């Protein structure tokens, strides 16, 4: 006799427990993140500002350029959404509470359809606000992205977990050492020596781009490391120091070096780029203490967008806003209880 287990009836399958679980997690996370009225005001302001900026860009450009951009954005968003949904399903099937549903073809399809419906609805609303006539390209672009990601999902490089050298992990660990910062600064200065023949504007652009690229390699953050250090009782400052030694020595060597080779303006650009990367590193460390990687990355992206917007429109307010963000994240991190047993 086949016994009917809870959660496996046709009613349960229709209800979509998988989707219900993820929707609940998402709503609870959003509620917790924007618990205070000031958080909500900041979020609303950022949303309005982002919509205004995107709307202005799309309206200012000819329809054909706007349409190609919307199509490309739709493809990228659709493809990203499909990959996200598939990754999430793989988690559910391996580590989740509802593996039964994640392995069942019918409930898998329902789960994917539900999340893509949400994605299409959000994209459609955004398109209507930005430039309604682009709806004919953005939504088909999303669907094309979903299809492309779905068709290529089976193509993966073979990956071996145990017994391999893990060069990526080794490099990441090395990039946090002070010597890595010195090495990166040396590379930057050697690159800038032949670039001195360029015109002033081009030279400053090279300084900025090269500094950002090298600083990015020194400021990688592993969310699992941050969480482990937090659980082990390390404070945010200690975690930041662990990750920031490479960029600190890079700043200490590259800025004076740029000053000597190219002058004060180049040194200022290098210093600004380094400080921006340090700020990004700090935001990520603090966010990883509080949230899952995916949500923390989203939050940091929103914060970074807001900072860029303020830097462009109201530079005087930039330090105040940056300090407010860091203070807020740090305070919430302190309130979080970390217990081992």
């Amino acid at each position: 006799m086949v016994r009917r287990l809870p959660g496996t009836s046709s009613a349960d399958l229709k209800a979509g427990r998988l989707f219900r679980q993820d929707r609940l997690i998402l709503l609870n996370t959003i509620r917790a993140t924007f618990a205070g009225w000031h958080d909500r005001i900041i979020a609303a302001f950022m949303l309005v500002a982002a919509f205004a900026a995107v709307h202005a860009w799309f309206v200012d450009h000819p329809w054909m350029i706007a349409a190609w951009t919307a199509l490309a954005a739709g493809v990228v968003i659709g493809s990203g959404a499909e990959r996200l949904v598939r990754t999430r399903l793989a988690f559910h099937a391996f580590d989740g509470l509802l593996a039964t549903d994640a392995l069942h073809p019918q409930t898998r399809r329902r789960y994917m359809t539900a999340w893509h419906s949400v994605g299409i609805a959000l994209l459609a609303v955004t398109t209507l606000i930005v430039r309604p006539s682009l709806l004919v390209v953005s939504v088909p672009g999303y669907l094309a992205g979903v299809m492309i990601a779905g068709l290529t999902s089976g193509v993966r490089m073979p990956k071996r977990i145990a017994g391999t050298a893990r060069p990526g992990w080794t490099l990441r660990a090395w990039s946090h050492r002070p010597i890595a910062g010195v090495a990166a600064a040396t590379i930057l200065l050697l690159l800038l020596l032949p670039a001195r023949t360029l015109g002033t504007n081009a030279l400053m652009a090279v300084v900025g781009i090269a500094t950002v690229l090298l600083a990015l390699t020194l400021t990688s953050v592993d969310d699992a490391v941050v969480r482990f250090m937090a659980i082990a009782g390390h404070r945010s400052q200690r975690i930041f120091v662990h990750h920031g030694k490479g960029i600190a020595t890079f700043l200490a060597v590259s800025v004076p070096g740029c000053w000597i080779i190219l002058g004060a303006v180049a040194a200022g650009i290098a210093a600004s780029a380094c400080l921006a990367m340090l700020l990004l590193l700090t935001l990520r460390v603090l966010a990883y203490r509080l949230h899952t990687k995916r949500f923390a990355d989203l939050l940091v992206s929103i914060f970074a967008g807001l900072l860029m917007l303020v830097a462009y429109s109201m530079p005087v307010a930039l330090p105040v806003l940056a300090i407010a963000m860091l203070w807020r994240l740090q305070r919430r991190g302190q309130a979080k209880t970390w217990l081992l047993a």
Partner: protein
Amino acid sequence: MAAGMNLAIELTGVTVERSGQRVVQDVDLIVAPGSWFGLIGANGSGKTSLLRALAGRLPFAGGSCRIEGEELVGDRAARALRFGFSPPADKLPDALRGRDVLELVGGSIDDVRPRLGTLHQALGLAPLLDRWIGDCSAGMRQRIAIAAAFAGGHSLVILDEPFNWLDPVAIFDLREVLRDIVDDGLTLITALHDLGTLASACDAGLMLADGKVALALDEDALRIAAENPQVFERQTIDRLRSGSFGEI
């Protein structure tokens, strides 16, 4: 095991691969209905991979897997449906409450409570139901994860190292209650790390080493082991160190 007896689980020559590597090789295993089967072995010996494959969380790469007489080696979804399984405690979502977890797995909490029975009290679930998982300690998360395995009312349950993170009182209470539930007809398979629990609480067991069966322990062997657990522990460790595999 008497010939022709109905078996809850029968694995024959199963292999499990993870990321292209064979982590479980040619394992034979039988579990009688209404018994507690203990799986022991060193870290990385393949216990978790075998249990995950049995519960449909990983595919079998080969062999035969019969559950309650039905061949399910190629059907992960059907295997997942048959077993109550405790998810890793650290993977429970921070943004859910204990109540949400149990209700997602087993429906209304009023339906879940009778399924848990005395386990509800042994795990001290009452104060955890309205607590955010993100605010729970590792031991609290472990209690909720164990309860989730029973919330669906399955007659076959797999627990991967259920006594990790628990305090001594909780370990004692949980072991007693699990034994009672097994005596009432549950088929329980657990990965364990201590030979004492294997000797005193389990009906049969298996030791894995490097993904292979290192030692098979039947009911008689465990009965003798329970009479003198210290000698059993010493003999088992000596056997493992010397690499002489087989049956005690």
